[in-house]
């Protein structure tokens, strides 16, 4: 994984990507116990290509293939890990990238989403495994509730949060 992070940093230094942030299960692992995952989700701000106003992942794949990495479907294998590059789907992901936290793995810097942004994105995505991760976060006690509330309000996710609470956070039976 360290090699993967080194490549991301080099891509940023070479201007292929802008800011990035690790999300998904690997991002969550910074805060929680490790849970099996097969890939690394990297949310990236993309550099604009030439005069085109469209932002595409083309230059990312071209760069990585030129540097000897292999593409497999929507993934690129970097180090031992399949990596999926995800441009921000909207303001929530853009904010998550902008506010990601700088960490270090064996002296290799890496940017990881905040726990609260990981939850908001999981809530928005809404698969069973996303809900399971949210429950893990709640149980872990690492959340800053006021920060999470502000993010959910800012991105129109309060209704989903309420629904999630009704579905999964009923008081325990005595």
């Amino acid at each position: 994984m360290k090699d993967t992070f080194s490549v991301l940093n080099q891509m940023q230094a070479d201007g292929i990507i802008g800011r990035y942030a690790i999300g998904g299960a690997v991002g969550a692992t910074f805060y929680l116990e490790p849970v099996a995952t097969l890939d690394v989700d990297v949310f990236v701000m993309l550099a604009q290509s030439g005069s085109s106003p469209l932002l595409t992942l083309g230059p990312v794949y071209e760069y990585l293939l030129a540097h000897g990495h292999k593409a497999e479907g929507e993934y690129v294998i970097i180090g031992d890990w399949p990596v999926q590059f995800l441009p921000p789907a909207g303001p929530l992901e853009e904010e998550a990238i902008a506010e990601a936290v700088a960490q270090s793995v064996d002296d290799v810097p890496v940017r990881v989403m905040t726990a609260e942004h990981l939850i908001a994105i999981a809530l928005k995505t809404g698969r069973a495994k996303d809900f399971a991760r949210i429950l893990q976060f709640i149980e872990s006690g690492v959340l800053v509730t006021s920060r999470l509330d502000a993010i959910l309000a800012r991105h129109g996710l309060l209704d989903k949060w309420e629904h999630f609470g009704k579905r999964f956070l009923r008081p325990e039976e005595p």
Partner: protein
Amino acid sequence: MSDWIKRLIESKRAHRAKLAALPFAEKLKLLGKLRQRTLAIHAARRAGPTNAT
């Protein structure tokens, strides 16, 4: 809920908290091992049942 189940749940919770408290680099190494195990399980599933006699 029986006392035995309560103790079991508490023990699992404590183990998870211990894992969560590891340094990020250590946890990433564990992720790598978990991934290898998951891939091995997937491969075994694809291979179908074996006759272990």
